[in-house]
């Protein structure tokens, strides 16, 4: 944690946990008999409970969106650039809630939790969870927090899919949905990348059918490979060229004529893979990528997205980034078009940014100008 603490930081934050003892029915047909959700909040809920914002995290995120858990933390939460006093998601005005998805590995019930029915770790027996499952669980958390209606539900990438699902499943419980760098469903190419990532994990000899923890090991190579692959899809070709080029790694730039690291980009990917293994769980990674693959709100409506969105009442802000090839602007336009078909309130901004999919996490001025302007209107409407 930097000292002195910047004025626009939420500072030290403490995650909270709520235990739900009512079973949760899941899309897969199975159910969770009981579960915990870990969440963080920033800012204050106002008297008429109109200023709550829900943040939905992406594939590898967690409840820790802003601030620091301890003074020794080197890095703040994953969306600290956007959340804080005076930042676009202004905690002087909004009460911000950020929860860790079910199946996660950061405190909410997931594969590494104990199954109350067996007394042993879920491991690979943890039920498959979907985006609608997550939204149902979050709605229960909102009940606990006394939030009848969110001023806005906000997410990027997989998080934006949750925000979209919120608007479909609970039209009366949010005024605005902010969808950033997302798609209405995955393309074959998106699924293909996820499948290779899963195969990397599944084929690691230390995976042990998902019971690696019982063996006291972690499928490190598989999980690291999955993350390395993911990172390639998060960056644009230009961003990689600018960041690494063909910069040689190591002594005097001589080629090693071996399979060691020769180039900076190799070193970066290896580092990303290794550090991911320290903080993330392989079973969770498998579940989250499946949740992505399964997301398709139009499927139940004859594959017509505008029909799926027919009953939404939220106003939408949809944001895409020009260099994002994982979820390209054209994918966001599919959502915009379906909203236009239904005469829904929608604003669409296509941010000219070279960073690729990762752009949604970066404080790009043109992007934050849009977020800030939009959320100022949301705040005014909420009376804060």
């Amino acid at each position: 944690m930097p000292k002195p603490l910047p004025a626009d930081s939420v500072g030290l934050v403490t995650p909270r946990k709520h235990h739900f003892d009512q079973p949760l029915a899941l899309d897969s047909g199975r159910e969770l008999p009981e579960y915990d959700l870990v969440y963080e909040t920033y800012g204050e809920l106002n008297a008429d409970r109109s200023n709550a914002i829900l943040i939905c995290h992406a594939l590898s995120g967690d409840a820790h969106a802003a601030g620091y858990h301890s003074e020794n933390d080197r890095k703040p939460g994953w969306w600290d650039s956007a959340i804080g006093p005076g930042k676009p998601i202004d905690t002087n005005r909004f009460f911000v809630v950020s929860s860790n998805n079910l199946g996660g590995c950061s405190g909410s019930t997931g594969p590494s939790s104990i199954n109350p029915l067996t007394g042993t770790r879920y491991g690979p027996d943890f039920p498959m969870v979907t985006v609608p499952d997550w939204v149902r669980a979050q709605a229960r958390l909102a009940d606990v927090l006394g939030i009848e209606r969110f001023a806005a539900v906000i997410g990027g990438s997989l998080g934006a899919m949750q925000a979209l699902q919120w608007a479909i499943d609970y039209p009366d419980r949010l005024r605005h949905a902010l969808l950033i760098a997302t798609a209405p469903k995955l393309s074959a190419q998106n699924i293909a990348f996820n499948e290779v990532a899963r195969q990397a994990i599944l084929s690691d000899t230390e995976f042990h059918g998902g019971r690696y923890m019982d063996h006291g090991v972690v499928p490190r190579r598989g999980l690291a490979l999955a993350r390395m692959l993911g990172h390639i899809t998060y960056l644009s070709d230009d961003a990689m060229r600018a960041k690494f080029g063909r910069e040689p790694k190591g002594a005097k730039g001589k080629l090693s004529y071996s399979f060691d690291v020769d180039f900076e980009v190799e070193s970066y990917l290896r580092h990303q893979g290794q550090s991911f293994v320290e903080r993330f769980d392989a079973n969770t990674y498998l579940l989250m990528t499946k949740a992505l693959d399964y997301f398709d709100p139009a499927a139940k409506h004859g594959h017509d997205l505008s029909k799926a969105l027919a009953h939404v009442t939220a106003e939408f802000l949809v944001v895409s980034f020009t260099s994002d090839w994982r979820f390209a602007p054209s994918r966001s336009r599919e959502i915009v078009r379906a909203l236009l078909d239904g005469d829904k309130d929608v604003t669409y901004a296509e941010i000219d940014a070279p960073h690729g999919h990762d752009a949604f996490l970066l404080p790009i001025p043109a992007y934050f100008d849009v977020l800030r302007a939009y959320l100022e209107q949301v705040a005014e409407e909420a009376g804060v």
Partner: protein
Amino acid sequence: MSELRPDLAIISEWIKPGSRVLDLGCGDGTLLKYLQTHRQVSGYGLEIDPANVVACIRNRVDVIQTDLDAGLSDFDPDSFDYVVMTQTLQAVYQPHRLLREMLRIGRQGIVTFPNFGYWRLRLQLALKGRMPMSEALPHMWYETPNIRLFTLRDFEELCREQGIRILERHVLDHVHRRRAWSDLIPSLLGEIAMYRFERK
């Protein structure tokens, strides 16, 4: 909102209360905001400039960031009562296609554009032999966004060819005021032209 630009005031009189409007190249959203507040109009603005998109958001106008040259295929036929385009037709790559698109998705179209046949422009070209510039056309030829310069007569001829019926026409000066004398010879004395039209 006190001072609405005179051309926008005329447009808002043309538009029936409660109708659905698409504003192509909507700028900061001034017209749509006025129409929403005073004419109970709903609709969207299309805009390419990021700063204008932010201004629209602040004006609480639903805006879609898009390039008009990429077409209007996101919109279904007859989804608007009016499709409006102020001071933009001369800046798009294929104005004739855009006019057709306007009348595909809207029942009526409204456009304003600088009249290249305005007498001072004619005089500049005739006497100086240089590409004319004026308050309504303030850019040098090599950096102007106005890549399709045309006159009232050109526009009306295009409408005839495209099967478009002109319902109303006004000409204005460069600060968008109506001058009684301009109506004597509009193609010569009008600096800015305004049209309302529909499919034949």
